């Protein structure tokens, strides 16, 4: 250990004093969250790649988007343009959330397993961080950081995509299909936001099960979380001629959305009664009710189940080592 330094002067600078330094527990939690983003880089690289691809598509898409001149008058109707604008916001979020689900799935499966696989668990356990806080930081990343980070990116994508499209329409490189409407924008984003909050709460049991499996299963976590539910479905159907588990999964899949009347309001409005009956997108949104979802007892029972899974994962990790 006697060779000259290889550390640059900028790296020698002490860590910036921040408000976090005044609050050690918060600082610890913040550091643990940063650790997750360092370790699982797909959590932020993949959404950024999706954003880049969508924005590139805004710059390069044409041809297929040409307007049929026979219907030009309908497409140029400002009311229609606002609807297209609102629907485009929804459409642009779909790739973000699909990719998020995929990335989150792999993250949760790996989050407590990877440290045992590479033996680094002994390093992590040499630090004064409790198992509960460790597991909480991972669930926080899965429940809050990634979903709301995705929401923020989707919002930025919406804005930039619309701006790029408008700019191209102004210079004649793209059809003038969308019309900015602040009310439609705000209401769409609010609906997406509350939809995301409800989704996180409603689907959190899946997250809890994956974290628990990551702590519990000794190897091949992915196989366990896919094969075991499949086997359960098959066994209850073939051996017992029942489908309780299948019904439970189906209910946990879409059971909450009926409370919002989204299906009847949105899809019904757009397909059932025809475009003529659509007063405006904001008017459609006004008929959606968020509050009933939050008073659904199953939503909160699911959250309690998730917390229990997190607690169990922490208890299991307590005596897990590199063996």
């Amino acid at each position, binding site marked *: 250990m006697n060779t000259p330094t*290889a550390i640059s002067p900028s790296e020698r600078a002490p860590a910036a004093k921040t408000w976090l330094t005044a609050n050690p527990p918060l600082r610890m939690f913040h550091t*643990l969250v940063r650790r997750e983003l*360092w*370790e699982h880089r797909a959590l932020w690289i993949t959404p950024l790649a999706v954003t880049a691809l969508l924005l590139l598509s805004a710059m390069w898409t044409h041809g297929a988007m040409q307007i049929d001149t026979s219907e030009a008058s309908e497409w140029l109707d400002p009311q229609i343009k606002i609807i297209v604008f609102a629907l485009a916001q929804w459409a642009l979020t779909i790739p973000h959330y699909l990719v998020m689900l995929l990335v989150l799935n792999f993250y949760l499966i790996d989050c407590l397993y990877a440290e045992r696989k590479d*033996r680094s668990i*002994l390093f992590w356990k*040499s*630090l004064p961080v*409790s198992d509960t806080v460790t597991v909480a930081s991972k669930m926080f990343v899965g429940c809050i950081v990634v979903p709301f980070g995705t929401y923020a990116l989707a919002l930025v994508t919406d804005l930039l995509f619309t701006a790029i499209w408008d700019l191209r329409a102004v210079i004649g490189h793209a059809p003038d299909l969308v019309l900015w409407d602040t009310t439609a924008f705000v209401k769409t984003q609010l609906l997406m936001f509350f939809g995301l909050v409800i989704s996180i709460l409603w689907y959190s049991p899946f997250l809890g099960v994956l974290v628990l499996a990551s702590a519990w299963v000794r190897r091949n976590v992915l196989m366990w979380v896919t094969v075991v539910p499949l086997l359960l479905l098959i066994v209850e159907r073939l051996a017992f001629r029942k489908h309780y588990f299948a019904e439970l999964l189906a209910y946990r899949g879409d059971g909450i959305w009926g409370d919002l009347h989204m299906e009847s309001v949105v899809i019904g409005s757009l397909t059932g009664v025809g475009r003529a009956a659509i007063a405006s997108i904001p008017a459609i949104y006004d008929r959606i009710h968020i509050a009933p979802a939050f008073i659904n007892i199953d939503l909160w029972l699911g959250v309690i189940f998730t917390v229990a899974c997190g607690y169990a994962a922490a208890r299991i990790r307590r*005596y897990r080592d590199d063996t």
Partner: protein
Amino acid sequence: MTAVIEARGLRKHYHTTPALEDVSFTVGAGRIVGLIGPNGAGKTTALKAILGLTRFQGELRVLGLDPRSRRDELMREVSFIADVAVLPRWLRVSQALDLVEGVHPRFNRARAMEFLRRTDIRMRSRVRELSKGMVTQLHLALTLAIDARLLVLDEPTLGLDLLYRRQFYDTLLNDYFDKERTILVTTHQVEEIENLLTDVIFIDHGRVVLDIPVDSLPERYLQLTVTPENTARARALEPFYEREVFGRVAMIFEGRTSAELAPLGEVRTPSIADLFVAKMESGSRGARKEAA
């Protein structure tokens, strides 16, 4: 002597295989204790019990705390290097510093930087890009920058070349150890650390077979290299171990004096490595005899 570790009747079984059987020992402050034993002797299990990483039966206090119930609190005062391969391979050096600084209240970043300045390690490097020796240096820099009262090392230099092994222990002595701090180390390479140790604990088949301060060894154990004509007389004094080297017989005695042995050959204090081999082999022979 202030006890840093007090273990009484530790027991641990992996299914039906005993790992610790009624293990008791005390480690005082300011000591460097070698926990030495063959593979599967129970060393790592004992260390994991001390660090609160495994369940066990018996009484154990580390810095006055029960590691089973107060592990997180304990780890503020205890540093631990399992072996150098446990640093996460995806971690950058700068991230490692940020990380330990963010979670450890006793970490001194400037001190860690001071250690790292003496190496070729670059801040942007990931652990997987470093040689094993460099990973050791990084881990040591992180560990020694923690103001811990107890440092636990489990085979810390496994797989390192002689140069890095020597640097590791030199750094440990020069930059970490003082009379207030305690080091508990397990290793197979006994001969490399025997000059550092203040105490040795030999463990075999989950039992403590020797627990002694190094400076008490000459009073209790003597090695006699006996001349051929005196072999029978020396054996009559009941050595617990003997071996033949280059036609001469080396015997190790417990509880004999130099005055008794000197007429029979050359007398000296056995090295810890010699004593370890003697204890382990005599123990095995004893066990075989009992079995027969």
